[in-house]
């Protein structure tokens, strides 16, 4: 048979339980803005009833207690968000890198390489019409210099972009290491809490948030362990396991898309890191195109110009510089060395307009002007101008593809976020109404306590009389 103070016990337990619920609500409200926070709920459970004989058997409820405080979270959504993060990280990095490349082209417009190619050939056409006009030769010299400067300038601008992307790779690897360390540390704390039977909701939220950040950087796979920790792998590479954080390899190769250390080579398949590798590879391919353009301009123009005779009787002269650099001996290839021949650079009058040395022989200038519409075998059977336009078109397509992919991945991520928020996010309206409910419950329990107190007091006073 329960004692006289059973009711007071029940009421005070209820007060404690409602107080806990109000505490949880307060915690939820406090974290309404915390990234990665999952709302928490206190689960109430009625106490085991006691049964006693009072003429016949009576079962009386024993009140209430908080059995657990849990976070509301959908693990399946979380896994989907990780894979969306990886794709979003990849397309964002690619889009960022390539838009900057696109800006360096200054196309379409009247100040890019395309225009200077046309104007270069125009200057030869002009010279062919007035072969012994010194001004026309100066114009050819200036147009050739502008073209060489623009091609070389673009190549160097691409070098800059490549260097920037490379430093971002280094940052990303450091970022991965830092997230890996954070996750391993949180794993340890979670394991300790779990070992004493606690439910470290907030630590798990922080850990999951770190995992999501990490998933945007590289393609990771997670594996939950029974002790509450998670193991993290990037394909064959272990990043976090029961042994703690591992060192992320910091040797990388964009061409193969891999990280490597003394133990092996590891493929990166998505995430920001992969996006950076992709954009570095794209920049390299644009540079190859510029090299090809410069090399063919050099050989094609020189081959014709070398058959010409200038006004001083000189012949066999190059127009673009193709003299190998001595010490160390390197051939003048590619866009990086693209420049006028030193002779032509020093004196425009060394330019040959014709083959005979006659004042009005403009045959070489004419042949060079005709080169503008000539399809070059080494340039995919395209003319110089078309080849460069193709490159501009390629950059444009790459950027718009990356942007479209980024837009798609952004909406996918937002979609999943909204689902996650729907499940785990804190709603102030919900919390407010819960708070009212808990407050009223608390008030009722307090009232009950005071009634029991009153009845007990009445009983005692009665005995005193």
């Amino acid at each position: 048979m329960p004692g006289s103070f059973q009711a007071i016990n029940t009421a005070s337990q209820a007060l404690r339980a409602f107080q806990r619920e109000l505490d949880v609500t307060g915690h939820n409200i406090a974290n309404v803005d915390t990234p990665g926070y999952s709302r928490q709920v206190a689960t109430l459970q009625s106490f085991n009833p006691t049964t006693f004989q009072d003429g016949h058997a009576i079962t009386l409820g024993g009140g209430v207690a908080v059995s657990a405080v849990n976070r509301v979270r959908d693990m399946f959504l979380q896994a989907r968000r990780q894979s969306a993060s990886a794709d979003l990280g990849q397309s964002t990095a690619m889009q960022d890198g390539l838009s900057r490349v696109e800006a360096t082209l200054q196309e379409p417009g009247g100040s890019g390489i395309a225009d200077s190619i046309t104007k270069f050939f125009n200057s030869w056409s002009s010279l062919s019409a007035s072969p012994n006009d010194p001004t026309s030769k100066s114009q050819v010299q200036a147009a050739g210099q502008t073209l060489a400067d623009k091609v070389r300038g673009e190549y160097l601008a691409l070098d800059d972009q490549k260097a920037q992307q490379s430093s971002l790779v280094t940052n990303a690897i450091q970022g991965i290491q830092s997230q890996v360390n954070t996750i391993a540390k949180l794993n340890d704390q979670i394991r300790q809490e779990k070992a004493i039977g606690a439910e470290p909701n907030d630590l798990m939220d922080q850990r999951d948030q770190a995992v999501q950040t990490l998933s945007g950087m590289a393609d990771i796979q997670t594996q939950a362990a029974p002790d509450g920790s998670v193991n993290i792998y990037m394909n064959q590479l272990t990043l976090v396991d029961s042994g703690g954080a591992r060192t992320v390899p910091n040797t990388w190769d964009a061409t193969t898309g891999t990280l490597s250390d003394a133990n092996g080579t590891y493929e990166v398949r998505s995430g920001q890191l992969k996006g950076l590798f992709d954009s570095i590879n794209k920049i390299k391919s644009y540079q190859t195109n510029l090299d090809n353009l410069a090399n063919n301009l050099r050989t094609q123009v020189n081959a014709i110009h070398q058959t010409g005779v200038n006004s001083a009787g000189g012949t066999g002269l190059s127009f673009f510089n193709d003299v190998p650099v001595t010490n160390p001996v390197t051939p003048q290839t590619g866009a990086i060395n693209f420049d006028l021949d030193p002779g032509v650079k020093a004196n425009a009058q060394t330019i040959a307009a014709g083959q005979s040395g006659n004042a009005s022989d403009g045959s070489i200038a004419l042949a060079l002007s005709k080169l503008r519409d000539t399809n070059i075998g080494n340039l995919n059977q395209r003319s110089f101008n078309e080849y460069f336009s193709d490159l501009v078109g390629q950059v444009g397509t790459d950027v718009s593809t990356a942007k479209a992919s980024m837009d798609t991945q952004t909406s996918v991520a937002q979609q999943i976020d909204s689902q996650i928020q729907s499940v785990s996010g804190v709603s102030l309206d919900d919390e407010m109404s819960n708070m009212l409910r808990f407050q009223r419950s608390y008030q009722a329990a307090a009232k009950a306590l005071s009634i029991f107190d009153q009845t007990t007091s009445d009983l005692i006073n009665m005995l005193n009389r």
Partner: protein
Amino acid sequence: MRISTNYQFNSYTQGIDGAAQRVFEAQMRVQSGKRITKPSDDPVGTTSSLAMRAAQTSIQQYSKNLTTAKGTLGYSETSLSDANDLLTQGYQIAVQGANSSNSQEARSALAQEVTSLQNRLVDMANAQGPKGDYLFAGQKTDAKPFTVTGNTLTYNGDGNNVVVETGANSSMVTNTQGSPTFSDAYDRLESLKQNLLNGSIGSISANDIGNLQKSRDLMTQERGVIGTKMQALQDLDTQNTRRIDDLTSGISDIEDVDMSQAITDYNLANTAYQAALTVASQGTKLSLMNFISG
């Protein structure tokens, strides 16, 4: 679906940001008048616009070349026309000299006139173009092509042509080979002069009058050739102007915005932006907290 507070406010922010960005883009299109400001706006359009720009710039150069060609042809035509006049005067002297009533003194005076005609003819043959090039020297335009040695005119130029590029696949010979015409004319006048000095009236009427006529015909033929070329240049010029205009409107079609469409888009984007702001300002006011008293 349950809406969390964070999600609600995020969606306001995203809605406002997105709408503001669309207003900005629409505004940029109206302000710049450009549909394509970077290749990724329309990669295919960019490629065709680059091709059209190249074609346009090339044609502008061909048009400049046409001006050079016109200069050479015009100056040549003037010299040939002057030479033609000289030959007409020579022809008249020959007709006058063939008259038997003339005294030998009168014929010697006529021979003097022929000498002066010859000197002027040599000047014509050594005429220079707008840039100081000798017009009738073949490609050796930097030196006087004709010199008189004894009684004959010697040609020091060459038989090569001066070619000007008039289009992507066309070019035109702009010089006139002066050696046949001028040498012939000089020789005919020389023959007339000798016959006048020698009093060979028969030879004048039998040969010189006819030969001078032929020589003049030769000049006229050359002028005809130049006239045809000038006409061709005029046609090319008109054609180029039209193609440049076509390309300009072609480039504009690709690169420029349709202004009425752009302004409509801008207004639409503005309305959407206002709507997003209104929704956010109304939505943020609503809260259960407004309806319960603490």
